[in-house]
């Protein structure tokens, strides 16, 4: 059974707010005692998705929640925007979309960095991305 210990919503409408969001994820992960590698992966994933929300999604918000499941701590991030949405999610998930040439969507890469990943999007209906990183024993 998963319980939510605490939860905070942060605006993502500017570079500064993206920086704050990144720092918040870093702090919460440190507080929970995440190892340096899992913490780095989570914050990097947050940076990738957060950037998408800001640049492609034309701004939105990030909700961070501390979870607990059978005594194991976890951090859940939800990014929501009401931008143009993604037409072809499958394509967005392939690595070709993170080429050095374009401002790639980085979804496939971010997915590999976290334990749980889900994306929901429809053209014209915005995008929502959920990430969860559980603390390794």
């Amino acid at each position, binding site marked *: 059974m998963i319980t939510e210990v605490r939860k905070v919503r942060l605006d993502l409408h500017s570079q500064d707010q993206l920086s704050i969001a990144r720092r918040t994820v*870093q702090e919460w992960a440190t507080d929970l005692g995440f190892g340096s590698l899992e913490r*780095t*992966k989570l914050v*990097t994933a947050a940076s990738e998705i957060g950037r998408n929300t800001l640049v492609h999604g034309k701004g939105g918000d990030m909700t961070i929640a501390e979870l607990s499941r059978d005594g194991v701590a976890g951090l859940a991030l939800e990014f929501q925007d009401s931008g143009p949405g993604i037409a072809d999610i499958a394509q967005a998930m392939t690595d070709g979309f*993170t080429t*050095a040439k374009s401002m790639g969507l980085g979804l496939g*890469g*971010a997915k590999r960095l976290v334990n749980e990943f889900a994306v929901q999007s429809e053209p014209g209906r915005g995008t929502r991305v959920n990430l969860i990183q559980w603390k390794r024993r």
Partner: protein
Amino acid sequence: MDRIPILKLQDYLLVTIQVELHDQLAITLQDDLTRQLSVSHARGVLIDISALEIVDSFIGRTLAHIAAMARIMDAHTVIVGMRPAVAITLVELGMSLTGIKTALNVDKGMDLLLALNTQAGHP
């Protein structure tokens, strides 16, 4: 507007990135480097990222752009000090940054730059 300082070390430019590189700062850095390279005719650029705990695909692309731009201006680029966690994360992201030279620290980075320039036939 803050900018990242670029130091000149004999024939080389040294950049130490210690803060988060957001969009504007990244663009400014690339512009400053281009200008400095052209003015100083430096033979190489050393970028120290040992202070960075997070390197996402944006920063990865920025570093790649800098290396490509320096190449065009006939200068080598060496990136030093990448942390293990950062290296593993970049590989997972799919950014292996092939073509960019790397070294463990500033010392070895300078050795590499000197070696590269000797090979290239520079006196």
